[in-house]
């Protein structure tokens, strides 16, 4: 009991006394745990509620099918197991132009009266009228459309009567993916990217073009007459959509498959979707976010380990006397190690709780279903398993960074600790020989690197993790740019992609966290080096070196330590991106070179202030203190 009180008392008092360091440690771990929490929150049920809300509000169908004739569509509408239906509605492909942008659309002909199944819910304006179209909301957002705007469809002018959401189609830019069953002939007719049975409707794009990817087709509704009016000899009416309500909605996948299988080999067979497939496409916006957050959590965790290791290393140096005293009055190695570990573990647990709460509160921002649906996902539930995973991460980070120094401190010489004798630096004869031929700053810098290889290793690890993150982010930006430019080439459009937009927003936030943590790490590492080198620096100055030469030496030491990290970080970042995005294109070499150079320059810039402060300490004071 007494020992527990002792350990707790020392931990609490120390945290109070060094609040800034404790805060940084908490921030580093909380950043990693918050990211992991958000990643874990984006699983399972989080996006389900908005789709179901939208489905209920729009009388969403259980099955949507496309046929080449109205008769075939009608036949399915009256099949056994169908409780209600709407359609068949003619569907025509068209090209929409607005404000210098253009895109492909599927225009569905509708009556002015609401349908029994699939009634798109207006979020602005009014329902279709002659000369007035309704645009699906995500697509309208991508085009920058509002109700009342005028657009051109296959060269004809229409007013945007309204903006609506639907549960019968996957939202832009994933419209095509909502259709789960389509024949090979149908699929290959439509797209080069997905020549499979799945995910492709059989509508042709205007001019017989094929999609390079399965994305970037928007949905609009217009009167049947207007839709038919968009057809031409080159773009005939070939498609009818029918929306079905089943007597047993849960049987929708089996219903769709049973109706599809007998006609699967026909060249103009149907394309059929079910509501579960549509729901999964609606969740894609969120799932993509998960793909970004998982590697981000890994990077931030590694950076947190580096941060905590630097902090712990520095604090151990500060607390050498305390360790010595504890041992002198009878603290066993295990008590000494426990004292140090307890403090960091408690901070890590606190950081885990902060991360859990922050991640939980921030998760709705990214589980927001987007413009395609109504309602919100709300705060996603954190399962006990997820909480355990997050807390486990925090503990692993703290232990990984603390265990070895704590054990080393507990086993070190008591007398040396009491006298606050710094660990003797390593002597590297070869480096000392090499450095003697270099200018003073390089000489000093190289020798500083050589005397504390573990700190240099930590610094390199810190920079490697940061560079990995930066390169991965750059690679994603390049990938997103290529993807968008590919879409633009096809659509001529310049539309924004909500999935990519959200990914980029998350990456921006993660990059800011990454760079901020790395900057703090750099400052702490530099300051640790400055304190460690104060005697050597004072001696150099006593022997005639100028302050500027000494501070330059400290900067050289940091940059030299960072160099291997940058070199390693580039392939690691590419590897991380390749693991997260299969088949993604890499950023140009010039980007990678700029990232490497920029990281090194940033390191040097961050080092300047602490280095200059360190180089200006009074020589006599430092030398007399060290001698005492």
């Amino acid at each position, binding site marked *: *009991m*007494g*020992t527990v*009180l*002792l350990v707790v*008392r*020392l931990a609490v*008092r*120390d945290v*109070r*006394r060094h609040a800034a360091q404790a805060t940084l440690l908490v921030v580093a771990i909380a950043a990693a745990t918050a990211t992991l929490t958000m990643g874990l929150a984006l699983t399972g049920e989080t996006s389900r509620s908005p789709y179901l809300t939208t489905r209920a509000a729009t009388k969403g169908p259980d099955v949507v099918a496309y046929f080449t004739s109205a008769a075939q569509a009608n036949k399915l509408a009256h099949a056994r197991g169908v409780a209600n239906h709407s359609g068949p509605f003619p569907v025509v492909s068209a090209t929409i132009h607005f404000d210098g942008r253009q895109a492909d659309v599927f225009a569905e002909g509708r009556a002015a009266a609401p349908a029994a199944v699939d009634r798109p819910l207006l979020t602005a304006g009014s329902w279709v009228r002659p000369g007035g179209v309704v645009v699906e909301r995500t697509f309208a957002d991508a085009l920058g459309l509002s109700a009342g705007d005028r657009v051109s469809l296959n060269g004809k002018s229409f007013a945007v009567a309204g903006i609506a959401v639907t549960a019968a189609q996957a939202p832009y830019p994933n419209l095509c993916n909502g259709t789960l069953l389509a024949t090979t002939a149908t699929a290959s007719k439509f797209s080069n990217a997905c020549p499979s049975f799945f995910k492709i409707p059989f509508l042709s794009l205007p001019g017989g073009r094929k999609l390079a990817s399965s994305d970037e087709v928007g949905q609009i509704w217009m009167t049947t007459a207007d839709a038919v009016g968009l057809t031409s000899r080159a773009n005939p009416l070939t498609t009818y959509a029918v929306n079905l309500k089943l007597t047993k909605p849960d049987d929708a996948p089996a219903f769709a498959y049973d109706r599809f299988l007998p006609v699967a080999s026909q060249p103009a067979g149907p394309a059929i979707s079910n509501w579960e497939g549509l729901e999964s496409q609606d969740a894609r916006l969120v799932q993509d976010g998960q793909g970004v957050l998982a590697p981000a959590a890994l990077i931030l965790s590694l950076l947190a380990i580096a941060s905590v290791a630097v902090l712990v290393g520095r604090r151990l140096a500060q607390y050498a*006397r*305390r360790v*010595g*005293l*504890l*041992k*002198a*009055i*009878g*603290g*066993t*190695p*295990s*008590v000494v190690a426990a004292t140090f570990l307890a403090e960091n573990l408690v901070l890590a647990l606190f950081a885990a709780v902060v991360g859990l709460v922050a991640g939980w509160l921030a998760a709705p921002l990214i589980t927001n279903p987007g413009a395609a649906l109504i309602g919100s996902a709300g705060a996603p539930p954190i399962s006990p398993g997820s909480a355990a995973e997050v807390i486990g991460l925090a503990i692993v980070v703290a232990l990984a960074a603390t265990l070895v120094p704590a054990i080393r401190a507990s*086993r070190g*010489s*008591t*007398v040396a600790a*009491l006298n606050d004798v710094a660990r003797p630096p390593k002597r590297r004869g070869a480096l000392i020989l090499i450095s003697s031929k270099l200018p003073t700053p390089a000489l000093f810098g190289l020798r500083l690197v050589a005397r504390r290889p573990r700190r240099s290793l930590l610094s390199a690890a810190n920079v490697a993790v940061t560079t990995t993150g930066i390169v991965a982010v750059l690679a994603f930006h390049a990938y997103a740019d290529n993807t968008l430019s590919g879409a633009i080439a096809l659509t001529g459009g310049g539309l924004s992609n909500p999935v990519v937009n959200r990914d980029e927003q998350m990456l921006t936030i993660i990059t800011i966290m990454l760079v901020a943590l790395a900057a703090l790490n750099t400052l702490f590492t530099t300051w640790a080096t400055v304190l460690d080198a104060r005697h050597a620096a004072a001696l150099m100055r006593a022997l005639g070196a100028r302050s500027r030469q000494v501070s330059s030496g400290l900067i050289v030491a940091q940059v030299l330590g960072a160099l291997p990290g940058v070199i390693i970080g580039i392939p690691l970042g590419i590897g991380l991106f390749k693991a997260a995005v299969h088949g993604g294109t890499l950023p140009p070499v010039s980007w990678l070179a700029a990232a490497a150079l920029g990281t090194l320059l940033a390191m040097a810039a961050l080092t300047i202030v602490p280095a200059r402060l360190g180089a200006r300490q009074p020589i006599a004071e430092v030398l007399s203190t060290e001698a005492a």
Partner: protein
Amino acid sequence: MTESGPGGPIVRARGLRKVYGKGEGLARAVDDVDLEVAPGEALAIMGPSGCGKSTLLHLLGGLDRASAGELWLAGRRVDRLSERGLAQFRRHDVGFVFQAFHLMDELTAQENVELPALLAGRSPRHARRRARQLLDQVGLSERAVHLPSALSGGQRQRVAIARALANEPRIVLADEPTGNLDSAATLELLRLFDGLHAAGLTLVVVTHDERIAATADRTISMRDGAFVDETRLVGGTSGNLGDLAGMGG
């Protein structure tokens, strides 16, 4: 293994040696020292800087391990103890007083004194009671809740002494305890040591200061790691301590 029975020396060292380095760089900090300290004795060890007296004190207190030789405390051989065993030895049998006080800056005077008792697994209530008693004994009960930074050098050293006594050790080892104190604080400390000695506590004090040594029962001089002289003082520290120390009014 036991070496002495009841009535024998409380400390017994045989051929104690501590060397650093090897080959031509070998330095003998403590060189083949034999020592016995009787229960209740006050022993002063003197010598110039670097003569090995602090190292010897560290060896006697189990802060450091000897390169060779044997060491017994109250009949128990301690030089062969494990790290854990040495920690327990320091916890229960030895009290240290350092020149630099070595108080924990973030703990109050009372909390500093509680430390050894808590480490020994005593209940917080017991540790608190014992700390109050000891602070009262050293005249600091009114400063119990102050941090070390709010105490004078003499007061800090008295807190350190109270801490050294927390677990009722068999012996108190003091390394230049007055090295950082002014004359008045030194006198206060000597009076305190005198009281402890009178109460039967065994004291080993390493010092430069001959006035401090004059208060001991016996003085040993060291040079180059070895004992070179030993003086037994008639009358010990009884009588006017300040006069003996040359600081009386």
